[in-house]
């Protein structure tokens, strides 16, 4: 910073934490050295919508019904699925394997 000078430890930490970063594409070969948290499903190990786990597009999404479970279970994003804790605990009870049984998932009306 040019106009402010970090004097105490906290100021130095704030300066480091707010250091501006360039926007980078996920497909780029090497990631920035500082911690980098991409937004989206490629954050988890299942293939996402933008890029597969290798950074390419060949192994992109599994069938749409697989996404349902990915969002529902593996992701912090609140997917639009029924409330399994309170309202509809058994809505996937008949669906043992999503790719085969997805038609058996219950329809839930709020």
């Amino acid at each position: 910073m040019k106009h402010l000078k970090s004097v105490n430890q906290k100021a130095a930490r704030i300066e480091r934490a707010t250091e501006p970063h360039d926007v980078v594409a996920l497909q780029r070969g090497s990631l920035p050295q500082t911690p980098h948290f991409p937004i989206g499903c490629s954050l988890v190990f299942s293939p996402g919508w933008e890029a597969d786990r290798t950074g390419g597009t060949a192994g992109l999404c599994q069938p749409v019904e697989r996404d349902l479970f990915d969002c529902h279970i593996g992701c912090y994003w609140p997917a639009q699925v029924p409330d399994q804790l309170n309202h509809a605990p058994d809505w996937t009870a008949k669906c043992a394997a999503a790719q085969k049984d997805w038609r058996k998932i219950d329809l839930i009306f709020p």
Partner: protein
Amino acid sequence: MTTSARQGPEERVSGSPRSAPQHAEQRRSGTPRWVAREHHRFEAAGKPFVYLVPSAAVFGLDETADVILRRVSERPHTRDELSAALDDVDSRSNLDSTLAELSRVRAIREIDAAPEPQPKIIPLAPFPLTTMVLNVTNQCNLSCEYCYEYGEDKIVDTENGKQPKFMTEETAQQSVDFMLRESGGNKVAHVTFFGGETLLNFPVLVKTIAYARQRAAELGKEVDFSLTTNATLLKPDVIEFLAQNRVGVTISIDGPKEVQDKFRVFHNGAGSYDIVAPKIKELLKRHRSRPIGARVTLTSGKMDVRRIYRHLTEDIGFWEVGFAPVTTSPNRRHAISENGYDEMLAQFRDLAFEFLEAAVENRHHGFSNVKETLEELHKGISKAFPCGAGLGLMGVATDGDVALCHRFAGSDVHKFGTVRDGVDRSAQLAFLEAHHIANKTDCHTCWARPLCAGGCYHEAHTRYGETTRPNLHYCNWIRGWTDVCLQVYGALSERNPGFLAQFDRDS
């Protein structure tokens, strides 16, 4: 010169209330207006600085940043208004980059930015215990009028109450086991012996230290010992033991004879100075393994902080002297009045600047109040709770009841279990929930809250009957003292930054 700004609605920031149509026009035109976030501006070594709230970051400001910050503290400004306020072309060309930096460190914000809620994060349990204060007795051979344990404001009946007057060896050993168990992953546990007059139970103290050393060694830990005493019982064999065992010693003493003898008296009313002074000198001569400090209680009447300091360091020979205003209800003879706090601040300021000049030349100065605050400022500590009581520090009463801190030991107010059954986690959690700074709405507009967080629980309990209350009777004093310490800190950062590096090593 120092100025402060508060976060929140614009009308609280400045003296020019915003009118709705004017605001609507600003929005339509899309011109952002800048306002200051909570901060405290101060000057040191002729330069401007800012202390940011709640982050507790300290930044030095260049001229452009200083002008901008002062302007937006008065009232909201657009970029064009700020440009007009800057004197020269150079400053104007720096306007955008300065606004970006001030905004980046959260010194300023656009007026339309949504206000941020007070975060309320309760530390995860089990929080490791760092310090256990062991009240080995609740009896005392002095009867200081202002004593919170014996005086008119006491919260525990030490004469007819349920607690034994002396802690037994068994309870002390159970306390050590409790301490080592609750210290979690910490390598070092601190045990402070306290009273009453601690040395009235010297035999148990001796045995407890031996037991603690042995148990800690078995667990691969270390225990550090300290005690507080009024010095009346410092006999040669006691001094020898304390020196050999590297026990840290804090002496409660109020100053020269006439000051000490005013309140620190024996049961028959006789002053204690003539008894304690030679014993303290003996202690200081023999006990060189740890720095020995004096702890002064400041009361009503003529306060002469510098004279007390001189006497205790130069005439008696203490390495450090710490001062604390007496904890009391407002109507007591020894209570400090509103004016008394101003007088105390003026004297603390003198002594703090004396500390500064010593620190600039790398000389030792024993005014411990300023050193403790400097360390907190250097680390940028921003507290959710005023002190470690109920978190890393707990007090143990003579019967083994675990209390919020030593001042509550033996009281049913904020009892946190017993040394035998462990910490009552639900009581601890309820306490932390109720005492978080987010609950103290009076503090939410105060720039000194990162350091104060509402002040001592015991003080609040004595003054207002509620530990949850912030200590509003000394807000001006806290802000004044924090400002003094910031000035000393800023000056040191310019004149001898090497002095502050000692706090980097400690962290």
